[in-house]
């Protein structure tokens, strides 16, 4: 019984939250990796793009709520999501036209584009705060739980509680759908293949008659969609705060680089590596240890790191990968 209780505690506090968080990071890292491999720079504005997209989704959610529209048990934000994606994609395309296009034309070095994206990051940062403010916003409505602690107890009779929140299920299902759609698009459609060709060998792609402007446009639209979806899922699961999204940049980049930047499968893998490391290292293992090891009552929480230090986990992994395996777990490419 104790073993089962230990497993339940592990699932409740580590497996489920880390999987949901990992899916959110993976979607963010996919956006970063896509921009990196096709537009050839590390997009530091990605976290704030997520914040902007989520901000728009929240505004539409409030609008729909004021009109009395809802999705019943599902959060209204899902209905607002397509509108958020359209506005975010439009912002990215506008930014590209006004800012990035010039640097592409002069064939600026990738490091210059990175610095440009830092500038874009600050602008988007401010734009988001103007739009929706700096406060923490909870915009999750609809059914809260798929399995509540009480239902769990009635179902199993176990003393150890387990809850499955609907946002966690929505996150995992949505992320899965988005990933399948993205891979289908990149591997099966003509446009998707032309984007991979452009990423592989720009000169040969141009020789083959692939239109670079079209590739860039489609890339930004997909990036906008990925960022908005990732941001909204994260916001539904936790809550929205512009500054938190800026901070998410670190684990997202760590995920993209651990997996092998430029590799979409690597981005997903990296997302889960980072999330499981972060949650695993900051979880207080006391409960699980007590169940598993009889006659042992640990004094402390058996927590390796305080949750305040969670960013140190991403950062350490990032440094270790860059030192020992710079191409990442799956061989990515370095521009």
């Amino acid at each position, binding site marked *: 019984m104790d073993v089962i209780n230990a497993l339940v505690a592990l699932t409740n506090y580590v497996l489920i939250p880390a999987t949901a968080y990992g899916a959110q990071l993976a979607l963010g890292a996919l956006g970063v990796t896509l921009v990196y491999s096709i537009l050839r720079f590390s997009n530091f504005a990605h976290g704030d793009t997520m914040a902007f997209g989520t901000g728009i989704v929240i505004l539409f959610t409030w609008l729909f709520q004021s009109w009395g529209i809802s999705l019943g048990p599902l959060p209204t934000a899902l209905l607002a999501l397509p509108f958020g994606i359209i506005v975010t994609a439009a912002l990215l395309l506008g930014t590209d036209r006004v800012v990035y296009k010039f640097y592409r034309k002069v064939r600026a070095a990738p490091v210059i584009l990175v610095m440009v994206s830092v500038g874009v990051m600050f602008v988007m940062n401010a734009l988001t705060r103007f739009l929706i403010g700096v406060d923490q916003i909870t915009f999750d409505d609809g059914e809260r739980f798929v399995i509540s602690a009480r239902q769990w107890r009635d179902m199993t009779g176990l003393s150890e509680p387990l809850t499955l929140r609907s946002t966690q299920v929505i996150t995992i299902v949505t992320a899965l759908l988005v990933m399948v759609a993205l891979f289908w698009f990149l591997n099966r459609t003509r446009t998707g*293949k032309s984007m991979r060709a452009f990423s592989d060998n720009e*000169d040969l792609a141009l020789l*083959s008659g*692939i239109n670079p402007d079209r590739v860039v446009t489609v890339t930004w639209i997909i990036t906008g969609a990925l960022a908005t979806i990732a941001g909204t899922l994260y916001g539904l699961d936790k809550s929205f705060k512009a500054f938190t999204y800026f901070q998410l940049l670190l684990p997202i980049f760590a995920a993209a680089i651990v997996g092998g930047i430029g590799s979409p499968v690597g981005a997903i893998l990296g997302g889960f590596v980072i999330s499981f490391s972060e949650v695993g290292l900051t979880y207080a293992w006391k409960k699980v240890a007590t169940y598993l090891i009889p006659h042992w009552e640990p004094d402390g929480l058996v927590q390796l790191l305080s949750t305040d230090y969670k960013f140190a986990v991403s950062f350490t992994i990032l440094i270790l990968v860059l030192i020992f395996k710079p191409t990442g777990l799956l061989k990515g490419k370095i521009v």
Partner: protein
Amino acid sequence: MSYLNAANMTGGYGKADILHGCTLTVEKGEIAVIVGPNGAGKSTAMKAVFGMLPLREGSVTLDGQDITALSPQDRVKMGMGFVPQVNNVFPTMSVEENLEMGAFIRNDDYRATMAQVFDLFPILKDKRRQNAGELSGGQRQQVAVGRALMTQPKLLMLDEPTAGVSPIVMDELFDRIIEVARSGISILMVEQNARQALEIADKGYVLAQGENRYTDTGEALLANPEVRRTFLGG
């Protein structure tokens, strides 16, 4: 008038010219080979024909039409195919996808052309699901040539197709190139392996310092004692 007529090409990348009045012509279904010492401007001449080098003087006509002002992409649409010396495949894409990308500008059904490429290079058919970057050098060259053939070009330009492959693979590649020429496609090719290339050439150009030094049939150039002594190492 020749099918390809690149006359009196003069130009370079910066201020100094690399080509000085270089002229290249290719007839229909003919193999023309450009040879010459390092730095003679062989690849540059080829790039000039393809529109990758701005020309100060001279003109390029294809099938009687002046294409001097066209971009490389537009020249592909006019019926030119170009195989660069390096980076000539999409490494993380499968062989089949490489060929599909070659046919990107075509809006019609290209499956018949792909079947022809697979007939020409049977090994590619076996490896069509494999990524081009995982193939051997010779196989990769075949993908590169196959990709260029997907637009059904009338003139195929090859920049050192046998660079870095073994002598056996080189012979094999030359055989395939002859086969392509027999199907009516004109070939313009730059080669380091001058002797072997001239053996299969209908026409040979020996370039030196961006100028035509000798122009003759491949056979005649191989027989010319002067050419042998200076450019073919005896």
